[in-house]
């Protein structure tokens, strides 16, 4: 039964003598492959060269410090609330006397953990953070041998005072 009038009768035309020889086709094929010999190679020699990331690339998180080396995070929990994968947990603590050089405000995160296997790298924590504390960087999460090791604590996430991580590409220049 014909449903539409768009059907076509497929014909398999008889090959001409030149086509039956196959040699012209083979030679044109050889021409195509030899062209690739001189093309630019797509390979990147990995350990020596690394691929350029897009400026919007969302990789491993970092917990920022301010200019004086104090942690920005105040353990408000907005990142954990916004996280769709529920990868972030934290414990808040009160800043004691003499710790002013370590934490910027009176409250800080005593424990801050991100489960890197749960994380979907959506960047909503970064969007939610009111204190410029958490950013997603262009660093790749290192591989580990067990699942437990993928729960990253403050020792990994907080940037070192002497090794600041550049997040200028991710900082929003607009205000709402």
């Amino acid at each position, binding site marked *: 039964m014909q449903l539409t009038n768009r059907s076509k009768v497929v014909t398999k035309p008889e090959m001409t003598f030149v086509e039956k020889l196959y*040699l012209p086709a*083979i030679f044109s*094929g*050889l021409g*195509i*492959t*030899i062209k*690739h*010999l001189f*093309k*630019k*190679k*797509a*390979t990147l*020699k990995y350990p020596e060269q690394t691929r350029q990331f897009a400026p919007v690339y969302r990789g491993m998180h970092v917990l920022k410090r301010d200019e004086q080396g104090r942690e920005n995070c105040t353990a408000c929990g907005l990142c954990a609330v916004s996280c769709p994968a529920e990868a972030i947990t934290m414990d808040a603590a009160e800043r004691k006397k003499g710790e002013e050089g370590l934490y910027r405000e009176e409250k800080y995160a005593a424990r801050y953990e991100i489960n890197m296997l749960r994380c979907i790298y959506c960047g909503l924590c970064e969007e939610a953070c009111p204190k410029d504390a958490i950013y997603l960087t262009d660093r790749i999460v290192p591989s580990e041998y067990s699942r437990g090791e993928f729960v990253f604590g403050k020792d990994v996430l907080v940037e070192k005072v002497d090794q600041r991580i550049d997040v200028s590409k991710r900082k929003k220049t607009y205000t709402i």
Partner: protein
Amino acid sequence: MSIVLFKAILVVLIFLISLGIAAYSTYGERKIAAFLQDRIGPDRAGPFGLLQPIADGVKMFLKEEIIPTVSDKLLFIAGPSMFMLTALMTSAVIPWGLPLEFGGTVYALQVADINIGILYIMGVVSLGVYGIMIGGWASNNKFALLGAIRASSQMISYELAMGMSVIAVLLMTNGSLSLNNIVQSQGEGKLYGFINISGMNWNIFYQPVAFIIFLVCSFAETNRTPFDLPESESELIGGFHTEYSSMKLGLYLFGEYINMFISSAVISCLFLGGYNFPGIEYLGTVLPHNIVSLISVAALFGKIFFFIFFFMWVRWTIPRFRYDQLMRLGWQILMPLAIINVLITGGILTFFGN
């Protein structure tokens, strides 16, 4: 230096060169495959990855030797040995260059100038099928057996067309089977009787059809793509060498590359003038004889390397034949074409002379 000592040195030298070229063919294959696919290929071992064949060889030697319990032990070991032996034997009759001359004695750069040279090569090459057949049979494995059967039927079918295409060439050299005579005749005379370039009187200009038939058949004889049905790793998981491991597998793979080298040499000798190169006579008048000899060796190796490259080039161009297509091409196309070519050549030579 006695002639026996010279021949002994030559034999060892050719043996080493064959193995060296086979080793670096594996590297070349991977490199060319990579380049044709816009990749870079092995480049970690040494500069440009040039030490890769050594690393591969060491790996092959250190791998565990597995002989299946259900296999025929003696034949299982005999298979790769025979394959390698026949692959190495063929190089004996190939003339590698113009003779060298030291102190009045002439040393021919050919291990044995026997008067049935090309016949000897065809004979030894067809012995090579035993190596594959025995190996595939002794493995006691379905895939290996299928691969071996494919290999033997393919090699037997294509040998006929190959032999027929050679006959046309032999007719042109007054029926001499000696490879040395065939190569020499291509260095003399004028191309088509009037183009006067010395050393350019190559058979390919007279016998293009025979050349194409011989080329296609040598692809089939060396089990290279598009005729790699015996191995066909995608269908038969390696074909006849499925059960082989360690250096026995290495011998099979190595033997294939040596076969490739030798068949490139035979093609060069039969159709591309062997060690002859354009301007060979002029160089003979201005340079010492031994230097010209070495240049002629280089010319032959240049042709050989081109054909080895061509083998690899075709591998990444043409997909594998189906088995019935393979048989149809061998028996219904190449075979009649070769016979017609012989008839036409014979007719022209009979009625129009030289």
